[in-house]
């Protein structure tokens, strides 16, 4: 028998629609793949399925009745990892959940439960890092702007945190890698795309775009960062473990003066 490849549009709803499809047709050997990472095998049969909100909702509702709210969150987090093969692990998890009468989300000795929680933890860590490492810079149009390049697609997970915290200022958090951002206009948070000028350097604070004050506060922050260090306790290994180098280019305190 040929192996079945089910291809969905890359969205979470799309993934849940694919899960619905698998259950509906009782497929046993099946792959769920994102439409950007399709792998054609000689012995596979590809089938693209549409995203259907109603079906996705039914799967999600089923999950919320089978699992705790935090376990459902775990599934969503793991999905946002965009890791190759994550869909397979999640499908296993979901099958295991539906085939059991007991709640299985704490059964860490089952491989799919353990794996899902591990991936979700990585995503959660990235979310926390972004909450910490986002650095807003004030633009000339009075918007606080930050650009990020997270390892996983964590923007959707950041909305609540930043909306609660910065309720009285306009802000944008832009994911350079995935080419979309969040924009808060003092009322709601929307998903946006921005056309940046060619050769726009996200790591530079260009005075054509950013407010004059911005330079002063960046300087003050850099100074503060230096003053608060205790030289006789210096421990760069620990420092880098907390602030991995790949994040440095967006941290104001890490910019050369």
């Amino acid at each position, binding site marked *: 028998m040929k192996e079945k490849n089910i291809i969905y549009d890359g969205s979470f709803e799309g993934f849940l629609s694919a899960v619905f499809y698998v259950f509906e047709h009782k497929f046993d050997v099946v792959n769920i793949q994102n439409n950007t990472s399709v792998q054609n095998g000689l012995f596979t049969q590809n089938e693209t399925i549409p995203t259907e909100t109603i079906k996705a909702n039914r799967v999600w509702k089923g999950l919320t009745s089978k699992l705790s709210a935090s376990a459902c969150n775990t599934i969503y987090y793991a999905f946002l990892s965009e890791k190759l093969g994550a869909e397979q692990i999640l499908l296993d998890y979901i099958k295991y959940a539906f085939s059991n009468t007991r709640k299985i989300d*704490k059964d860490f000795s089952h491989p799919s439960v353990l794996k899902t929680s591990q991936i979700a933890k990585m995503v959660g860590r990235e979310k926390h890092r972004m909450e*910490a*490492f986002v650095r807003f810079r004030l633009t000339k149009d009075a918007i606080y702007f930050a650009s990020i390049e997270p390892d996983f697609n964590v923007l959707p997970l950041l909305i609540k945190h930043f909306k609660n915290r910065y309720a009285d200022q306009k802000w944008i958090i832009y994911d350079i890698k995935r080419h979309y951002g969040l924009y808060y206009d003092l009322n709601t948070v929307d998903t946006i795309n921005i056309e940046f000028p060619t050769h726009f350097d996200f790591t530079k604070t260009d005075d054509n775009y950013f407010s004059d004050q911005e330079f002063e*506060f960046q300087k003050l922050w850099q100074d503060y960062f230096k003053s*608060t260090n205790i030289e006789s*306790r210096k421990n760069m290994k620990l420092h880098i473990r907390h602030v991995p180098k790949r994040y440095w280019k967006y*941290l104001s305190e890490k910019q050369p003066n």
Partner: protein
Amino acid sequence: MSFQRIQEKLKILADAAKYDVSCSSSGSNRSNTNKGLGDATGMGICHSYTEDGRCVSLLKILLTNYCIFDCAYCVTRKSNDIKRAAFKVQEVVDLTINFYRRNYIEGLFLSSGIFKSADYTMERLVAVAKKLRLEENFNGYIHLKSIPGASDELMREAGLYADRLSVNIEIPTRAGLKKLAPDKNREDFLKPMKKVKQEIIQYKAEKKIIKSTPKYAPAGQSTQMIIGASGENDFQIMQTSNYFYKSFNLKRVYYSGYVPISYDERLPQIGSAVPMLRENRLYQTDWLMRFYGFDVSEILNQQHQNLDLDIDPKLSWALRNLHEFPVDVNTADKRMLARIPGLGMRSVHKILNARRFRRLNWDHLKKIGIALNRAQYFLVCDSNQFERRDLTAEKIKGLILQNSKSKYTKTLSNQLSLFG
């Protein structure tokens, strides 16, 4: 504001504040109201880390480093020949707000040297917090230092605007304090602490009856002790710590390895190592007391007045109490699970959950993430492979040390070479 003047002041007053190790911004429950700025409901975020690996979460500064006192262990002491500066209330407010808006910080930690008098100083600290809350509608985190000797009335007001209040006892014993900080006496520290404790209890009680009662220092009180400046042993330090936790309902006690800053003969000299490993062991003991159900006297007592530096305090305790082991992870209660060396509270919860589904063996335990190199000598699980030899404590310690390279080995050998 004039950029250069602020820059100069910030350098001086951040530098002087850095020896206060507390940087916690968690434990409050202040949420954003009326679409203001900020929110302090979460866990508290470290926005960056210093090159010495400490969390940067708050703008930690002194209002001024002018001081009328002369505490030997402090850079700000009157007799020290350093540059002095003082912020205006509005300058601190502006810095805080602008740093906060850029997501640099969770809030402000404001301390101060004592200029003129305790009340004069405390009044200004309170003025900063008040302005932030009432004029800027700021809901981020505010930690104010309670100035020893400040009046009850000011302390009451401070708690209405601050999330946390702290007084640093700094020196763990009365005798040490007398020697190093002759201007200070213990009662001056205790007075604001007592007041704040009473107010917290009272506001909480009122809140139960009248919902609109304002918050009072929702993140509680903390204090700090300097380690290794005045010759106390670990037993004395943890007894003091235990006393403060119990008598003042403190949220945290911080331990800060003394950083030599002076040639004063009463103190370790400039160039001697900061006792970072010892500091770490004290924190571990503190955790065992607060989260693992240990009584301080189980770990430190007349017989054991100092913590082992080469192994952690839980392992030390286990080696002294081998008759309590091995523990069966499939049946033991939470209290005993938490006492197995190599098991953190997280692993304990995972075990409690997972064992409802099946009996756990070594493989499961490994996957759960337990440090088996330490734990294996102290537990049995669903396997007939376990440590059968009747090993002595010394032997077990040797085996464990052989198989683990402590991240502190380097620091440790540095410290030991002092005696070599």
